[in-house]
């Protein structure tokens, strides 16, 4: 099926199909399957080490799965990576960038590598830097290596958006981002989904996911424990956090635990 036909039909924007990965006998992802409809925002939540990053890495072509596959708008990421990646925008967590470029130079390189041409790249890059409030650092000639963690997130996001993808996969996009920039980020993502785009974000922060996304998946020990609209997943629980704790299990802090903290 070609991508054009796929987009006409009722094909999920992003589909994770039984993705499995084992690292040194530890099963980081164990048959992870998800289907994200077009125009929605999915929050992928789970405790540390649950397999969120591993699953997303396999979904965007960064990590080859032991078995299973992923599809972007019906195009298989692992058999037709070039076509699938055209529609994808990705923000990984905590990785390096070409550190000795300024944000503007990085976007210039990135846009032209993606075949956007110099003029279109420059127009978009300028606007992105302005909206993400990186324009001042750019004027000062600050290199990416000198950026703070939050600024690194923002320039990473700019690289994910530059080629106007249809599906965004963002690993911990809100981490270390200041409240003002977080509002900007939310506005960008809302505009993106309103325009028919699809977003997948991973996060530890339940309140954020609850407030932002319309679908949610809970993942723990490499397995999907719940997946659906926010209402479906939450069910009768008061908050998403309650559902999360019920499914994942939590160690309650007993009366006598850590008594020394209050001494």
């Amino acid at each position, binding site marked *: 099926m070609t991508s054009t036909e796929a987009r006409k039909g009722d094909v999920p924007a992003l589909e994770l199909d039984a993705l499995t990965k084992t690292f040194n006998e530890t099963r980081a992802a164990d048959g992870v399957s998800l289907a994200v409809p077009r125009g929605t925002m999915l929050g992928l939540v789970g405790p540390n080490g649950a397999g969120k990053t591993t699953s997303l890495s396999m979904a965007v072509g960064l990590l*080859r799965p032991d078995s299973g596959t992923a599809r972007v708008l019906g195009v298989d990421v692992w058999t037709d990576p070039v076509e699938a990646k055209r529609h*994808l925008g*990705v923000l990984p967590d905590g990785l390096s*960038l*070409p550190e*000795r470029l300024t944000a503007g130079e990085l976007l210039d390189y990135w846009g*032209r*590598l993606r*075949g956007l041409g110099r003029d279109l790249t420059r127009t978009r890059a300028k606007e992105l830097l302005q909206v993400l409030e990186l324009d001042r650092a750019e004027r000062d000639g600050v290199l990416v290596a000198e950026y703070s963690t939050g600024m690194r997130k923002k320039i990473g996001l700019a690289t994910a958006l530059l080629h106007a993808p249809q599906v965004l996969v963002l690993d911990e996009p809100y981490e270390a981002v200041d409240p003002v920039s977080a509002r900007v980020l939310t506005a960008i993502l809302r505009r993106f989904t309103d325009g028919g785009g699809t977003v997948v974000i991973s996060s530890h922060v339940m309140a954020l996911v609850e407030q932002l996304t319309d679908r949610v998946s809970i993942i723990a020990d490499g397995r999907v424990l719940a997946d659906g609209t926010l209402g479906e997943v939450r069910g009768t629980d008061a908050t998403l956090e309650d559902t999360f704790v019920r499914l994942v299990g939590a160690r309650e802090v007993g009366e006598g635990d850590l008594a020394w903290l209050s001494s």
Partner: protein
Amino acid sequence: MVELLIRLKFTLGRHTTGGTRWLTVILLVGGTAATWFLAVAAASDAVRSNLLMLALAVWAGSWILGPTITNGVGVLRSQYFTLLPLDRNRVGMGLLVTMFVGFGPAMTLVSAAALAWHAYASDPATLFLGLLGMLALVVFSVSLGRLVFRALGAAMHSRIGMEIASVQWGLIVAGLFFGWVAVQPAFVAAGNLTEQGLGGTAATVLSVLPTSWPVLAVDAAASGSWAVAFAWLGAFASLTVVTVLVTGRLLAPSVSTRGVRRRSRPLGSRVLEGRRSWLPDTPLGAVVGKELRSWWRDPWRGLELRSALYAGLFIGLLGLLTDIPQVMLFSGVFAVLIMGMGGANMYGHDGTALWLTVVGQGRDTLREEVRGRQIAIAVLIAPLATLLSAAAIVVSGEYWAAPYVLACLLVFVGVSNGLAALLSVVTVTPGVDPHKRVDANDTGDNQTQVWIMMLAVPLLSSPTLAVLVWGAFQGSPWWSVPVALLNGVPVAWLLGRIAYRRLERRLPETFTRIRYGKEIARQSLPTNGGGLLDQLERGALATNEEIKPTGS
């Protein structure tokens, strides 16, 4: 605290796999055996004193160069302890103490004990001086090693520091590749070393070195001048204390900001952009621009480029000093070869930044990615190397060398460029991720690449070299120039092609190698057999050291 740090060091050490560890052990044991052989076999007290000075200087020298050459990064990095409510200088001192635990310091102690033996053999009454000197020598050598290593790391944060580090590194590389020429005369005379000692200028130079002061103290005491003896030992002890204090200060966790706010646009920003950019508006142009900027601005890449040029220059100067002046004419050729080795781990240098290439993969982007890097290295090294050799030829007036130098430059620029691209992909070895780098050798280990280069460059250049030799005998050396062109360019093109084809097939695996470390990377390779490239990759996994924290 010190005990805890030592335990932490061992715990971290257990999780690190080392390929070169055995070589280091062999060198240490061999060095210790040689030191004791010299001490025991020496014909007289005077000769023993002389030889001990030599041995102790070599030990201190090894401590200075060893950690940088062997990627022996201290596993305990001072920034781990930044947030602890401890005095920074105390942490620094604690870290310095952990440096004394290990096989290297132990062997140094055993070797330095030869001084105690020297004292006992000269006059048993001086034994305690020998023992004190022995302890001070170990403290001095180990601290000095850390001091130089950290100073080099600190230097990476300023341009002038990087320049100094490049000169130092260039000297090291020149010494490694060409040092035998300088050492050779000494060894020719070394047949009766244990009979007569070194003698001459070497002995005079040696006796001035601080590591010789404890030996001089013992000698003075043995001849009855106790005041002089205490003066020598006191001087050495004071120097040791100063070294320890400075090193402790350098090892203390740094709390200064990462980057220096610049006053002007970063280097190269004007040349490559603007309306009239030098580079074409294509993916290839984009990659070349990114690479050139990175080579100009990244201190770690700058170190590779500059030290290649300095090494070429120093090899030439070594040639001049040792009466082989023709070597100077080929200094540019050496620079090209060393740059090839420095560029043979480009993806390791860039660390996890490869994710951009993975998620931005287009129809031909991997080809452009590899070709762009090849063009950038050639643009950087070829003119500078040519200039270096051309200057030497013009200054010396030795114009006969022109065809030889030109042919070598042409063929080696091509061959080492192709090999650099190929090895960067196949034997990629990550170091500390670029945005977390501190020390000068935080980039990935590239010893496998260096060895392969040393074998493969002559092999792949053999047509040109054959014609060069033939031409020399026939009196028509210019024939080798077109042959060099026909040899170098296709090899660069072909190896580059193999490199991007490999990258196209194993792009996620290459990223996995960088992101998740060698244990996980091994899973994607056949355990034996496979093609030549698989074998090369397995070789690098088995040999190159992992200086990157593993896991995600």
